[in-house]
């Protein structure tokens, strides 16, 4: 491991004091002169057609300025590109900001702008809507039944990317007994190896059905936005996971050119996948502001956030898994039904298959899936989309097999662990070959974790009862996507000798907006207190940057910043050679100087070199730019040209494997069998994520992601009134995100800190893999404490635990969603 001065060291992010003193501005904290407020009219029905809108009385009210309906919107843009490794979202019936055919209860139909929020809300109350109710479905299996309802007029699933109606037969349903998932026609499938041969080698075959629930992302900051127009340009103050990549989407939703968008998002109050550009936030305040000629603030309430704030796609699965006596998995045959909400198909169900093929390296595998549309809030990737669901479906099966085969829970995962350039996923249709990861050190992570957690010593508590308290221990291996490539870095060494790094990363709490810029400082040997990071506002001229989703940022933007730093270093050397003689490679940099090798006191200071760069112009100060950078970066670099020595480059570093990170988690739980109360006694994780960039931030990401998984294991859920298609759990209290009292009492963490071989600096992303690890470590520990057949769905709540213990088997089936 290279010796670094900044990389791998803790530091205080420069935005932290603003956050802790309340000075940090989130979208709702901005004000503008003459600012109006707008309110949304939400559909009261799960599926309907708007026959007529009578807004005369509302518009006649004093203070009401304008109404915006679906008819006034520009045509919807194509869906955003999916995160790397995920199939493109099929979305024929495009979602737009407002609609005349609401497809879930709570979908916005129109918006009203008024001088204050109360007036806007009163105006909404006076609008008379004439709605024609349409058939609706809120449960995938209901929709698949013969004569079951379709969520959309056009159908209930995607077959070859087209919206079609798919119904299973009565026999498909009656064939499934004992609460097992029915398996009718599934349009989507992939296979690895010879499945039957795999099962023939198995000494034990388990056939289990499991339900993972849909949940709203619910970042603590709702997606409030404020828009104002100045000199023909839209200034949008919003909450987003990417400062830079939101611009193009806003332009498309509003129907203007990207050059006419100024996007301000200095602080974003969490996203978790939900604040990748969305239509409502982007379009409504902007269009109402244009219409009224005044700034418009759209505050989003918590309940509205439940509706438009995106949600994870729940997956129901039936998995048949074959094991050899030594625990090796010979075959996996998994069938998945995905609840996709009312719009595009999500990639989660497919990721269930892909991630299982990586985590357990089965000798043969088949994945089948059907994605079903329902009249429930729209889905989007939520932290580890499909990865989290995979761990919930498979880890309890693997632990159950371990118990049946008399193998240790950690050992069975070592036996099946991915190692080195482990292969995974469906074979390429052309070559027949599977893809592979850049590196995997899961066995090392399991060993380190077992030691950190004290697995051997804790085995004595496994399944033991003391009084009413049952104890259990569990473990999980969770892989997920961890990086993309091909973005741009942009920095300036200024005439005052400061290094100014431009960061287009969204500041949503991961710290990566700043962390990745430390790589540029490291490579230029700049002391951190001589560095300044520009972020959060596109008028500050930011480079083309990845969306902070899919755990891309750490990998993608360390590469881009490395490239920009190398470009700046080359220019420093060239300037020194020009002025002081010799060749560029005779010069080195350090201590804020470029100097002749072996003579650190010679040469130029960075400040002098920056002034020379401005005199020289051309490539040195950004007047000539590389041809391969993105047009967005070209615009930004052009605006900054002449302000110093510019480092600007695209990440063209070679990259062979797929970038995935691995997290292993261990948990010890204690359940009171008389009350159902659960306590997480201890929780330990080990991250195989490449080079550690910022230890505090890494441990925070791993534990925070783990807690999201833990919430899915023990409390978070939706609840639906199936008769009327109405959500009942719309706010925090009934959605049940975990509180500080649900967090484990004792938390341990370690990182392997083994550099990824295929990226400069060696750092990968980590936002997502901890989610499945936390989720399944708790589930396997719960099964260890209570028995294998106590739960077949999550969340495993106290009432579920008590009912199951009383019955002697699982009380809650996996066939009905959102109960």
């Amino acid at each position, binding site marked *: 491991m290279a010796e670094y001065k900044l990389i791998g060291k803790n530091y*205080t992010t420069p935005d932290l004091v603003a956050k802790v003193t*309340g000075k940090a501005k989130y979208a709702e904290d901005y004000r503008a002169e003459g600012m109006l407020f707008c309110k949304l009219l939400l559909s009261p029905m799960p599926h309907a057609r708007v026959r007529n809108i009578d807004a005369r009385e509302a518009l006649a009210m004093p*203070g009401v300025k304008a109404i915006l309906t679906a008819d006034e919107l520009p045509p919807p843009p194509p869906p955003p590109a999916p995160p790397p490794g995920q199939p493109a979202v099929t979305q024929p019936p495009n979602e737009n900001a407002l609609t005349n055919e609401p497809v879930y209860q709570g979908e916005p139909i129109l918006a009203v702008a008024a001088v204050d929020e109360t007036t806007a809300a009163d105006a909404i109350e006076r609008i008379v809507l004439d709605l024609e109710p349409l058939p609706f479905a809120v449960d995938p299996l209901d929709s698949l039944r013969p004569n079951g309802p379709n969520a959309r007029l056009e159908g209930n699933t995607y077959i070859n990317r087209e919206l079609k109606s798919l119904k299973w037969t009565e026999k498909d349903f009656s064939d499934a007994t004992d609460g097992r998932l029915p398996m009718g026609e599934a349009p989507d499938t992939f296979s690895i190896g010879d499945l039957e041969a795999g099962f023939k080698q198995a000494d034990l075959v388990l056939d289990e059905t499991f339900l993972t629930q849909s949940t709203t992302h619910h970042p*603590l900051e709702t997606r409030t936005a404020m828009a104002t127009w100045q000199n023909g340009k839209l200034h949008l103050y919003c909450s987003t996971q990417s400062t830079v990549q939101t611009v193009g989407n806003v332009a498309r939703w509003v129907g203007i050119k990207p050059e006419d968008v100024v996007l301000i998002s200095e602080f974003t109050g969490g996203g978790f996948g939900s604040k990748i550009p969305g239509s409502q936030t982007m379009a409504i305040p902007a269009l109402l502001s244009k219409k009224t000629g005044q700034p418009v603030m759209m505050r989003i309430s*918590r309940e509205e956030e439940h509706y438009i704030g995106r949600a994870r796609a729940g997956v129901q699965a039936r998995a048949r898994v074959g094991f050899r006596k030594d625990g090796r998995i010979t075959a996996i045959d998994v069938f998945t039904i995905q609840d996709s909400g009312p719009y595009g198909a999500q990639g989660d169900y497919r990721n269930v298959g892909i991630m299982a093929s990586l985590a357990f390296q089965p000798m043969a595998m088949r994945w089948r899936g059907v994605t079903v549309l329902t009249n429930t809030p729209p889905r989007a990737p939520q932290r580890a989309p499909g990865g989290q669901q995979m761990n919930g479906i498979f880890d309890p099966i693997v632990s159950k097999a371990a118990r049946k085969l008399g193998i240790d829970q950690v050992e069975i995962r070592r036996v099946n662990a991915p190692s080195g350039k482990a292969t995974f996923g469906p074979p390429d249709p052309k070559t027949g070959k599977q893809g592979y990861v850049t590196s995997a050190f899961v066995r090392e992570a399991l060993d380190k974790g077992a030691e950190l957690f004290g697995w051997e010593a804790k085995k004595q508590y496994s399944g033991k009862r003391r009084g009413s308290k049952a104890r259990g221990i569990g473990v999980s291996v969770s892989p997920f996507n961890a990086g993309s490539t091909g973005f741009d870095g942009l920095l300036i060494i200024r005439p005052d000798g400061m290094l100014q790094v431009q960061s287009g990363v969204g500041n949503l709490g*991961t710290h990566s907006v700043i962390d990745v810029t430390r790589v540029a400082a490291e490579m230029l040997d700049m002391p951190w207190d001589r560095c300044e990071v520009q972020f959060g506002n596109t008028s500050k001229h930011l480079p083309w940057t990845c969306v902070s989703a899919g755990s891309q940022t750490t990998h993608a933007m360390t590469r881009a910043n490395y490239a920009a730093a190398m470009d700046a270093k080359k220019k420093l050397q060239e300037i020194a050679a020009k002025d002081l003689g010799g060749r560029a490679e005779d010069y080195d940099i350090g201590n804020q100087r470029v100097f002749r090798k072996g003579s650190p006191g010679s040469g130029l200071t960075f400040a002098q070199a920056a002034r020379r760069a401005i005199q020289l112009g051309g490539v040195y100060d950004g007047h000539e730019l590389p041809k391969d950078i993105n047009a967005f970066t070209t615009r930004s670099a052009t605006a900054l040209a002449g302000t110093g020595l510019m480092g600007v480059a695209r990440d063209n570093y070679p990259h062979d494997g797929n970038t995935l990170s691995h997290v292993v988690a261990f948990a010890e739980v204690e359940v009171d069998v008389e009350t159902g109360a659960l306590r997480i006694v201890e929780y330990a994780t080990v991250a195989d994520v490449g080079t550690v960039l910022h230890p505090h931030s890494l441990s925070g990401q791993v534990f925070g992601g783990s807690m999201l998984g833990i919430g899915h294991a023990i409390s978070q859920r939706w609840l639906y009134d199936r008769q009327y298609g109405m959500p009942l759990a719309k706010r925090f209290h009934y959605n049940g995100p975990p509180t500080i009292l649900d967090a484990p009492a004792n938390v341990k963490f370690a990182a392997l800190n083994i550099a990824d071989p295929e990226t400069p600096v060696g750092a990968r992303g980590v936002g997502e893999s901890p989610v499945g690890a936390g989720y399944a470590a708790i589930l396997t520990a719960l099964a260890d404490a209570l028995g294998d057949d106590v739960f077949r769905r999550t969340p495993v709540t106290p009432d579920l635990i008590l009912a199951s213990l009383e019955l002697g088997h699982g009380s809650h089936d996996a066939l009905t969603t959102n109960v």
Partner: protein
Amino acid sequence: MSDKDMADANMMPERGVSRRAFIKGVIAAGAAVSSTAYLFRAPIFGQPGAPGAVERLITLNVNGQMRRVDVMKQETLAMTLRYKLGLTGTKLGCDRSECGACTVLIDDVPHYSCSILTHSVRGRKVVTIEGLAGADGTLHPVQQGVVEEQGFQCAFCMPGFVMAAVGFLKVNPNPTRAELAHGVSGNLCRCQDYDKILTAFMRGAEILRRA
């Protein structure tokens, strides 16, 4: 909200306000420095007094300053702080007492400002996140603990959490981790690194005890 606050809140808007009192309120409101009513309608002269109208121009003690402000009777403290007094450090996460992002101190006790009427805090001391650091920028020990431990991620919950911790440490300056967790358990974080939040606050408690 404590029983006492509930009683205060219920008691405050007097019923059947006289025409004289109403007009006084309207005139006062018109003269208020910060009369821009974002959420609430500006008063309209000549309209009959609404039943239950109360005096609108009141004085609040916020962060040690006496602030004159025009407040409707149904206005919550969070809205007054954010939209009338420019104190946007107090966040609204749910507006219904579920998340604690809007926590402020009222007479040193943490309260959800989304669920307390502004009129009920007249004559009481309100402290928000903006009032914690010294005038010279010196951070409060709890804030210092957060900075030293790089606590919190998106930090939207942070102002509320910090105020809850400051309030709790006033009555229990030397808590165990478990006690401190209970003390701030009325606050939600969705980035959910609850472990580092506690570490930061334990550090803050230590600095506070040394101070």
